[in-house]
């Protein structure tokens, strides 16, 4: 079906952007000439564009303007609809739409009933249609910004979307004139956003992506091996996210209001909507400053409300929710059969990741060697709200050259399903204090094949003949006890009886990562190495799991080569624990 053959017009110029489409907010991004991802602000100057549409007398409002309609025009305002797309009514949770148009069953799909035309009539707007309208507005903002018509996009989706959801999203976008080149998972997009920075160093690492949004939090543990990403575990939580933090502040201010005015603003729909919008603003302000105010004109019974709260107070009130975030991340690491000590990076993504306390808690949970990528723990962190969109934009720039069919073929499971190494492969070295020898990993576990890694190894001081012993390594966690320095006389917890639960055992545990030597795979002799010379070892694992080893004196000629037969691919496809 080339243009010459069937007379079709050669594909028009493609202008592709990256879109992150959330239940709460959406973002659009493009890649500049230098390959740098930039987030596009819409006409109102918003980079986080609320995924909300509202209708007043036939006029459509979008984004922040629509969101503010939740107070006066909530029944004709549609919000939090992303997760409904491509689902049937029985499997959705209508809770987030409590204060806006409610989802309803419509034939085999889900729809909202709103007055979206000038006439008084209530119209049924399906979730597909509303998505189309939303994407149309996003694309139009991007087109305005770029000065050319946007007609394609890479869109991010959660890792647990179904094929039906993908299909529905693709169709809804197409109806808005946007061709979905590829849908990529949100956590991978966040990883790519960081890895695509010019200063990024290509390194094998385990990354936890914690995407903390408005109505859901999604965790993914990603193995990044030579820039190839594999998701090891995921978890999704619909009870711990931004709105739960809003609720903490709503309750706090409501109680304050009740104390003075004897009326509960939460009991009136409009009062609650007002307070909710303000509380969210207060919450965002608390991410930056130590103090924030909350003022609502005529909150309830015509009474104005104004108050301030400091960050310490807020963190105390929200302590339980913060604790739940930390546990989600711990759980995801456990599900990946990993230990906290295995994690090299934590990428905090999503709007709620601006919250300083959440990243501080993670700093305490992880060892100091783990990098916590969030605004409050790393000055050079990327705005967490924009990570998905940036990643999508970078991917768009990578694939927009290709025909869509080729993208589909290349992202097909026949290409993406790949054996991953169960154990690390490495070389034995010796050290003075360890007689038996130490394992040095060259290829980490969970590396997709084919792969190759090269290492440069030192030799004994005088040079000479050395042996390169290739083996598998198994990571082990060594736990040892450190005696706590005894406080003089009485136990220290004498006056803190109330919460002395954890202080009770006196010994502090020290946990460290050590290698256990697994199966020996091969040995190679490298002879007559010069004094001060180095030995270069290359291990290559083929796609069929055959192993090739090459060892030689660095800079020298020839060297030793050998190979091992193929290993098996495990037949068991079950998910890990949980």
């Amino acid at each position, binding site marked *: *079906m080339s243009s010459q053959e069937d007379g079709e017009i050669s594909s028009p110029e493609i202008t592709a952007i990256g879109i992150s489409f959330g239940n709460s907010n959406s973002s659009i991004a493009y890649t500049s000439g230098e390959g740098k991802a930039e987030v596009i602000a819409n006409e109102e100057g918003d980079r986080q564009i609320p995924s909300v549409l509202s209708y007043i007398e036939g006029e459509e409002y979008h984004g922040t303007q629509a969101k503010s309609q939740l107070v006066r025009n909530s029944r004709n305002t549609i919000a939090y609809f992303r997760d409904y797309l491509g689902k049937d*009514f029985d*499997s959705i949770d209508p*809770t987030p739409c409590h204060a806006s148009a409610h989802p309803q069953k419509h034939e085999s799909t889900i729809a909202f009933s709103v007055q979206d035309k000038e006439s008084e009539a209530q119209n049924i707007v399906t979730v597909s249609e509303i998505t189309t309208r939303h994407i149309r507005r996003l694309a139009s903002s991007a087109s305005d910004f770029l000065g050319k018509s946007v007609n394609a996009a890479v869109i991010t989706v959660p890792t*647990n979307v179904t094929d039906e959801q993908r299909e529905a999203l693709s169709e809804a976008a197409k109806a808005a004139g946007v061709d979905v080149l590829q849908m*990529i*998972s949100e956590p*991978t997009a966040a*990883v790519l956003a960081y*890895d695509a920075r010019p200063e990024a160093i290509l390194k094998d690492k385990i990354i936890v992506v914690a995407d903390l949004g408005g109505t859901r939090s999604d965790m993914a543990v990603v193995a990044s091996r*030579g*820039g190839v990403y594999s998701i*090891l*575990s995921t978890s999704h939580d*619909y*009870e711990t996210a931004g709105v739960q933090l809003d609720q903490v502040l709503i309750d706090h201010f409501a109680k304050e209001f009740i104390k003075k005015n004897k009326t509960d603003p939460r009991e009136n729909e409009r009062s609650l909507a007002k307070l909710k919008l303000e509380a969210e603003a207060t919450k965002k302000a608390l991410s930056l400053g130590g103090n924030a105010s909350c003022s609502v004109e005529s909150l309830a019974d015509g009474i104005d409300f104004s108050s301030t709260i400091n960050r310490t107070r807020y963190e105390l009130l929200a302590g*339980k929710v913060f604790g*739940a975030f930390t546990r989600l991340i711990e759980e995801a690491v456990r599900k990946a059969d990993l230990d906290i000590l295995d994690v090299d990076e934590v990428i905090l993504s999503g709007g709620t990741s601006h919250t300083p306390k959440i990243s501080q808690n993670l700093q305490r949970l992880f060892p100091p060697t783990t990098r916590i990528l969030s605004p409050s723990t790393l000055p050079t962190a990327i705005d967490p709200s924009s990570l998905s969109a940036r*990643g999508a934009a970078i*991917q768009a720039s*990578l694939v927009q*050259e290709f*025909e869509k069919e*080729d993208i589909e*073929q290349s992202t097909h*499971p026949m290409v993406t*399903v*790949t054996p*991953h190494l169960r154990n690390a492969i490495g*070389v034995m*070295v*010796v050290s003075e204090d360890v007689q038996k*020898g*130490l394992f040095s990993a060259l290829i980490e576990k969970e590396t*997709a094949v084919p792969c190759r*890694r*090269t290492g*440069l*190894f030192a*030799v004994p001081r005088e040079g*000479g003949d*050395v*042996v390169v012993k290739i083996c*598998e390594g198994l990571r082990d966690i060594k736990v040892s006890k450190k005696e706590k320095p005894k406080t003089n006389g009485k136990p220290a917890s004498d006056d803190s009886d109330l919460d002395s639960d954890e202080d009770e055992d006196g010994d502090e545990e020290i946990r460290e990562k050590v290698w256990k030597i697994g*199966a020996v*795979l091969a*040995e*190679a002799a490298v002879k007559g190495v010069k004094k001060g010379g180095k030995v270069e070892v290359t291990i290559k694992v083929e*796609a069929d799991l055959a192993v090739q080893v090459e060892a030689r004196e660095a800079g020298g000629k020839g060297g030793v*080569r*050998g190979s*091992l037969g193929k*290993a*098996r*691919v495990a*037949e*068991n*496809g*079950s*998910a890990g624990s949980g």
Partner: protein
Amino acid sequence: MAAVQFSLPLPVLPQDWVGEKDFKAIGQLSSATQRNIEPVGPHFLAHARRVSKLPLINRNIFAATNSDLQQKRHQRTFSEDDRIQAQENVKKVEDDDVGEISEPEDPLMLQRDAKDWKGQDHYAVLGLTKHRYKATETQIKRAHRKKVLRHHPDKKAAAGSSEDDSFFKCIQKATEILLDPVKRRQFDSVDEAADVEPPSKKQAQKGSFFKLWNPVFVAEGRFSKTQPVPRLGDDKSKKEEVEEFYNFWYNFDSWRSFEYQDEDVPDDNENRDQKRHVERKNNNARKKKKTEDTTRLRQLVDDCLAGDERIKRFKKEERAGKDKKRLEKEAAEKKEKEDAQRAAEEKERLRKEAEEASKAEKAEGKKAKEAAKNAVKKNKRVLKSSVKDANYLLPAGQEAGAKRVDQVLNDVEAVMAKIDPEEMAALAGKLGGMKVAEEVAKVWSEEAKRLVEVGKVKEGELKVIGS
């Protein structure tokens, strides 16, 4: 990726290492896990190209340039079967969808009024009665979601039933309590449905002790501040384990508390006294219940201990053990004594033997010496008389002058001084009974010659017999 540097050295090649072409294949890679890689980022493109070289998946690749595309068009594309086949053994990373609600819902429960939340069984509301205090946070969240999907008022409206959200509120309340660690403990404290009653006397007589009591302690253990809680064990448990078990339960540190059963405190400021009164009442009630609970647990442990055959057995074993020890000790002492005695006797015997031997030796030595002395004396006499009898070695008829006699006797004395008793005996043997003077002279002269040869006498030292 760039080569990684390792600063620790490789080991020295062992002397006896052999390998064909310096390489030795030994083991095999562990089996690999099938996973999906994310089709994202520049390195994936490289991977897709690499993979496409494989016969296995040599069908279509990520086209590098548009001009490649023309050719690719004619290649076969992946089918739905390919997709299914490829994904067959992939390790799952997503949990299954929330799925069906597993426990049937009691119609009476569905009619509950949320206002009476204190009386509601939160685990039953969420369908978690199989788990109760053991339910994890994740399980509670998933259970909640399942219930919301079914009971959200919007769902009911869709199903045409009245928009009664009463049970939905029950669900929300149950979730609120079970997801709040403090509130959950308060509820778990009074969640009698999780209790396991101790066996009655009748049951105890019939059933297996361990089967009956173990679940009781597992259930009680949920209140323990220290976790894990030691288990009751079985017949094979060691004495220390059993002791630790009862020690633990007699010193049980419980977090159980009873505020959940508080009477509501009136919430208006008007009636302060009334409020304080209720608070005091509540406080007393909590304390009373706590004390009762401690007593109850103590009684329970007492009852269990009383029926625990292991304790009796350990006592018996201990007694038997003590007796055995005593006997062993006595036997050992006796043996020790006997051994000591035997050793002393042996020593004495050896001493005596040695003494006698040395005495005999001494006596023997004396005799021999005497005999030797006598022999020497006798031999000396033989030697001396031999020269005298042989006319001082002069031919017969020649008178031996005084000088001659002196010289010859001097020589004889000199020889006798040089030779040892054996040589003397030998010489005396030859000379004894010899009468012919020439022969005697010859023997002496030979002796003199021999002595010169062995260096005992100097040439010419023996004036007469040596000439």
